[in-house]
């Protein structure tokens, strides 16, 4: 009897979820997610299962691909670092200072999300090519930007800046000004206050923003291909390698390299989550 009772109460719990709509909303969620995202993604593995290990290895260790990994990594890293610096400065001035045009500046931060990447790509290419407005100036002092890794980095800076600013801004807004006042009262200079008091508070957010900008930079295509110039071993990024393999109908190689990219982006996001939870943990322990 006890058993029967248990079963009936289990049954009634399912039936009696107080808020209605669980079955329907969950059903729609799972089916749409599967149809649009999961099943197409799984086809990567379906295709890869038809690629032998030798071919897989050949595709991913192709010298041209390895050069592309390097270009993608270095450029994404450089861009994310620049964005970490300027993103912090921008978040800081937007939150802490009042100056004319602040609201417009704030609104502009999201421009890279709103502007199609291809438009950004051709505009940056024109701007930084040898006879473009900035390119001309830089060519005068012997720096070439368009069709070099520097150009790729610039495109990735453009794409990544909102991630950092928007990650740090809310944290700074919530940060109680009293901490800083307390530090100032204790005689700390402005820089000391920032480094010792403010920076530890925004560090997790900065890391998140940095990581998102980096991950986005690794996968970015539209804004980069125009300014990159697609020179083998020099300015080919990984998405471009995949694209060119596809154009040669070499699906196996394209999919193999795609898998490497997926693994890498997940590792990046995972690493950020891990470091972040460590930081949060440390912060909680200190309280």
């Amino acid at each position, binding site marked *: 009897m006890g058993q029967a009772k248990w079963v009936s109460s289990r049954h*009634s719990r399912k039936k009696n979820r107080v808020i209605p709509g669980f079955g329907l909303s969950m059903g729609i969620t799972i089916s749409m997610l599967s149809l649009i995202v999961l099943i197409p993604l799984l086809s990567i593995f379906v295709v890869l299962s038809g690629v032998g290990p030798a071919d897989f290895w050949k595709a991913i260790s192709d010298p041209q691909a390895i050069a592309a990994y390097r270009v993608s990594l270095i450029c994404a890293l450089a861009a994310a670092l620049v964005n970490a610096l300027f993103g912090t400065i921008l978040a800081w001035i937007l939150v802490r200072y009042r100056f004319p045009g602040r609201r417009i500046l704030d609104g502009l931060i999201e421009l890279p999300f709103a502007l199609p990447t291809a438009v950004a790509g051709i505009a940056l290419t024109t701007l930084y090519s040898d006879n473009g407005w900035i390119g001309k100036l830089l060519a005068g002092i012997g720096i070439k930007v368009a069709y070099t890794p520097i150009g790729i980095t610039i495109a990735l800076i453009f794409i990544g800046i909102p991630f950092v600013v928007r990650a740090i801004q809310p944290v700074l807004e919530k940060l109680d000004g009293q901490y800083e006042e307390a530090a100032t009262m204790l005689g700390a200079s402005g820089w000391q206050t920032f480094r010792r008091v403010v920076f530890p508070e925004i560090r997790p957010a900065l890391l998140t923003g940095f990581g998102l900008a980096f991950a986005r930079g690794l996968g970015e295509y539209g804004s980069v291909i125009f300014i990159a110039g697609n020179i083998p071993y020099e300015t080919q990024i990984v998405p471009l390698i995949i694209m060119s393999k596809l154009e040669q109908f070499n699906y196996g190689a394209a999919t193999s390299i795609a898998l490497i990219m997926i693994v890498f982006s997940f590792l990046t996001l995972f690493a950020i989550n891990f470091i972040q939870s460590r930081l949060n943990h440390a912060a909680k322990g200190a309280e």
Partner: protein
Amino acid sequence: MYVELKDVNKKFKGFRALDDVSFSIDKGKLVGLLGPSGSGKTTILRTLAGLVHPDSGDIFIDGKRVNDVPASKRGIGFVFQNYALFRYMTVFDNVAFGLTVEKKDKKFIKQRVNELIGLVGLEGLQDRYPHQLSGGQRQRVAFARALAPNPHLLLLDEPFAAIDAKIRKELRLWLRETINSLGITSIFVTHDQDEAVEVADEIVIVNGGRIEQKGNPADIYKSPATPFAARFIGESLVLDRHETLHGFETYSGYDRAVIRPELIQIAKHGKQPILHASEDGIVEDVFFRGSLIEVHVNVKGMRLIGHRSPEEDPLLPGEKVSVLIYRLYLYNEDKVHLAENVRLKDENTVFI
């Protein structure tokens, strides 16, 4: 029995929230579920409402087992702890919601809502939004909203928790009067014993997922059934060497004693008429509490708390006093015994 719980158990992730809970309530009663936070009192209320489903046990309302009746079909009005008013609806729409859902006639809804708004004294505020109301007004809206569909049973989860201390007292009286005039069976949850004593016809004391005692406030106060009830109702102190006190030497075999300020009389030294039944003590602290003076005395290394009237001669810390203890609640693991001061009885017989 109008509402009855029988052997109800509920576990949350291994935590025993309800442990064989059984009690029943008569029709038309206003009952307070009283207990410390985490005691399971809110879980009992939510189980009754159908918001929580018990692992085992039966729930009866009006003679019907309602375990498998969904929350919305149990005929219950529920006032949530933070009222859960619909923030984007006016007072009128909030109160009307339950009736709209039942697809009642528009004219009827209007009439019923206005009637309820009148009942809770919020005339003229129909078109306000919850954020434009004070805490007390929000509670009245929540109350009216719960009553609108004409429930048989009204459940209130910590109805006064979100209200300023100042108007809380006034609202308690209002709620008690309104519920009594409507005659609707009601159960409310509270952690505040004053509130329970003042509002409820009957109190159910809950602790650790179990029912400690059920009864009217005066009975529980006078004869607590469990050590927990003794300590929880009224102001109380626990003593661990009661048998050293004059008049209580003969009570042995009990672990501890609970004493209340009302059971102690503190007098200037030597001014105690029944001297041989009293103890000597030293005043440790004196606090002015408005209508009374709270005196902490050290008697044989134990701290006792008693009250004196501000009209009496003031006592000073360090002063020697006579302390007469009328009664103690003695208890073991699970038994409570009311102990009279033995010497006091002797004295009486001598005088007569």
